[in-house]
């Protein structure tokens, strides 16, 4: 019974990670990935590893989505520019 919270969070991590792989569009994938980061931080907390959880929160909640979306924007702009030239 005491491990119920660990089981629930592990299931959430498994479901979120699977979703992150299953979603195909990069922008929508970044949304799932940011949820995955937060859920992983909770997993580390319930396993009594708050230092790792804090690292995961710091990187996963804002930095990773920002890097991903900036990359998506650059790639799309480049594709648009190529389309206009042709």
């Amino acid at each position: 019974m005491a491990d119920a919270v660990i089981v629930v969070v592990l299931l959430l991590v498994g479901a979120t990670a699977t979703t992150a792989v299953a979603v195909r569009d990069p922008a929508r994938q970044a949304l799932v990935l940011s949820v995955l980061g937060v859920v992983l931080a909770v997993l580390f907390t319930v396993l009594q590893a708050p230092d790792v959880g804090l690292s995961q929160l710091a990187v996963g909640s804002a930095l990773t989505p920002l890097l991903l979306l900036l990359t998506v924007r650059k790639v799309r702009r480049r594709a648009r520019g190529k389309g206009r030239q042709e």
Partner: protein
Amino acid sequence: MSRRVRLWLVAVGGGALAALLVAACLDLPAFGGARHPYGDRAVREALARHTANTVASVNFDQRAFDTLGEMTILFAAVLGCVVLLRQTRDEHRARPEPEPVALPVRRYALVVLPVALLTGLYVVAHGQLSPGGGFQGGVVAATSLHLLYLGADYRALERIRPVGLYEVGDALAVSAYLVTGIAGLIGGSAFLANTLLPYGTFNTLSSGGTVPLLNAAIGMEVACAVVVLLARFLDQAVEIEEEGK
């Protein structure tokens, strides 16, 4: 190599890896057991050196050399990124147009920026006492600066972010870590040995010997590295355009 052979190769490799992992897992101690030989020793060492957060003691005292390796990895990764994402000869910079931002969002960004920056510094400074440390605090502090891009526009961010200075800061922080290590070698016993400074009073900011110093060096390194990394990504996404457009 045909598709069939490749699939077989993947299947054999994956199967072997899975078998090895299962075999290794069978020998693990049971989940949540009471016996932690490594944990007990690490906690004893951490308490002997007056470091309240054992994880900080492991990272910056008992295994400070491993942290040096991790720091070098981040440094090299950022260096590679700077080289790859530089402005090439057939690209030019376009001035980003300011984006209209709703007033509550702009105000929120300007209020939260100093709070987040302070929180980052707090997490770095309390690394030897509570969860956190240089890496976590550095990332928070660096992210907070980019609220200026989110809440205002890119040119506002560029004004407070001379990238050159942050590149110098990154290199200086790496050197500071190395110098602290060499000081341990000269004045104490070994490279990165935590024997130079007094260990201080348990559970205060100045406790832990060189742990707070190394924490601060890592905090500065990570904050500068993230700012430089994001600067390259933002330049590419916002400013740099190919010629002929």
